[in-house]
């Protein structure tokens, strides 16, 4: 039984190197987005943000991580030890796994060996993504529940309802793109955008996907799972030290993953606009640049919008976003059928 086709297989040793490189790149990008978020939030609020540690505060995330990792691992007596320890690992694992399918470039010759600049190019790209998104929900759910604290539990419950509600719209928003591209492979979707990026024909899909992604990554204005004003810290209230760092890491990595998916699916991946075809080694930088723009938007929205109420969140997700996503899919389906 074949579950999924893989477009291009490398030698096993290239796969191993690629896995290490992807994990390393993910690890390097998280501190960058951490400091970027704090600096930009500062700018949006008319202040500087952290600027004491290192030149322009650039070493602040290092100091933060060092502080968190040297802290004591404590857990409440009411918690369930095994799950309490496993939950952050699930979060971090799914985030890194989802990062693996983001294509940073096409197959390229590196020292005479053809290597695809992505973890793996599966023929079920978005499905893989949503599968890991669904597993990531266990990280939050188990973490909140096994803490044995009412605030964690409330946060986890909200998280569960929110992730399920918005995953539907997120998936439906991508369906339009898949119709138009006619493939589920992410590199295939990028190559299908050679003429025009999907942000233009699938503009509503783009907006819906972006909004649903804010909810999926638990970012403002949908950060009800960790609403610090009412739930102390939400699902990670009882976490401290390295385990909290894992949750933190996973949260920001999720932002990067979503930025990467938006880049790949709507912003033409490694393609440059106006028909510019740079040499292959530029492709990853093009992708990173586009990811930075989307991540900037995430931070911008966080600085702008207040947190939604729980009933607003639910009614927005089910009554507005889902019908719009369905309509978008329907119209796309009709147009694709008519034009072919």
């Amino acid at each position, binding site marked *: 039984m074949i579950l999924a086709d893989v477009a291009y297989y490398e030698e096993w040793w290239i796969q191993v190197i690629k896995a290490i490189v992807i994990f390393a790149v993910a690890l390097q990008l998280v501190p960058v987005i951490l400091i970027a978020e704090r600096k*930009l939030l*500062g*700018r*949006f*609020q*008319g*202040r*500087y943000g952290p600027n004491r540690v290192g030149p322009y505060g650039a070493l602040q995330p290092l100091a933060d991580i060092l502080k968190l990792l040297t802290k004591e691992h404590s857990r409440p007596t009411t918690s369930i030890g095994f799950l309490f320890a496993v939950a952050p690992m699930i979060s971090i694992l799914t985030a890194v796994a989802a990062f693996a399918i983001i294509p940073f470039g096409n197959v390229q010759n590196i020292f005479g060996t053809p290597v695809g600049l992505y973890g793996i190019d599966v023929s079920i790209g978005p499905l893989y993504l949503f599968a890991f998104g669904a597993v990531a929900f266990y990280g939050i759910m188990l973490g909140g529940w096994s803490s044995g604290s009412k605030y964690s539990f409330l946060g986890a419950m909200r998280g569960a309802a929110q992730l399920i509600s918005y995953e539907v719209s997120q998936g439906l928003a991508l369906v339009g793109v898949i119709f138009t591209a006619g493939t589920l492979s992410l590199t295939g979707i990028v190559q299908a955008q050679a003429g025009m990026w999907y942000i233009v024909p699938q503009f509503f899909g783009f907006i819906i996907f972006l909004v649903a992604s804010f909810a999926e990554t638990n970012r403002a204005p949908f950060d009800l799972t960790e609403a610090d004003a009412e739930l102390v810290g939400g699902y990670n209230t009882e976490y401290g030290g390295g385990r909290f760092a894992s949750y933190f890491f996973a949260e920001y990595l999720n932002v990067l993953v979503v930025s990467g998916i938006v880049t790949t699916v709507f912003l033409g991946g490694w393609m440059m606009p106006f028909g510019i075809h740079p040499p292959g080694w530029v492709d990853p930088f093009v992708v990173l640049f586009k990811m930075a723009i989307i991540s900037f938007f995430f931070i*911008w*929205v966080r*600085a*702008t*919008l207040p947190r939604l109420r729980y009933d607003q969140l639910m*009614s*927005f997700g089910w*009554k*507005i976003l889902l019908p719009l996503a369905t309509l978008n899919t329907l119209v796309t389906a009709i147009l694709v059928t008519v034009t072919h």
Partner: protein
Amino acid sequence: MPWDPGKDVVEVVRGPRPGAAGGAYRAFGETLRGLKTTFARMIEGPHTIQYPEQKVPVYPRFRGRHKLHRFDDSDPTHPNLEKCVGCSLCAAACPADCIRVVAAENTPENRISAGERYAAVYEINLSRCIFCGYCEIACPFDAITMGHDYELSDYDRSDLIFTKEMLLAEPVERTPLRNEGE
């Protein structure tokens, strides 16, 4: 003829209901407006004053740490004498009771102040001082004035009792003075 309310009456234009489709449409527009506002704040740049490096300049009449004064060296009648004559009017005027003055007689061999007596002990307990400036007003010889220094924290309460020597010494001006029109 219908009554004309004029321009005093404000017409209330009600927006669409928040939960309905019109409300969602408007919320989208308002979101964009909010994004514009925050972006404008970013373009505007930070308004922070980086305190230990940058300081807010104070006005000339700012009441900071006290100073005791001497006559100028150039004055031949009172060469470098203290202005304070130990009258204790400042201590009497002080609402916080933080000034302690012990006066002593000037002698021809040991002439310290311009008057008959001088302040043998002059202490201000800055941990009690409320910086009201009454001592400055009470002083008949302008011997005590309020300076511009406001960075007065210390590690020990006893270090905040400023003696005469400390008040007479030329203070390190750590505070910029606000210029005309600033």
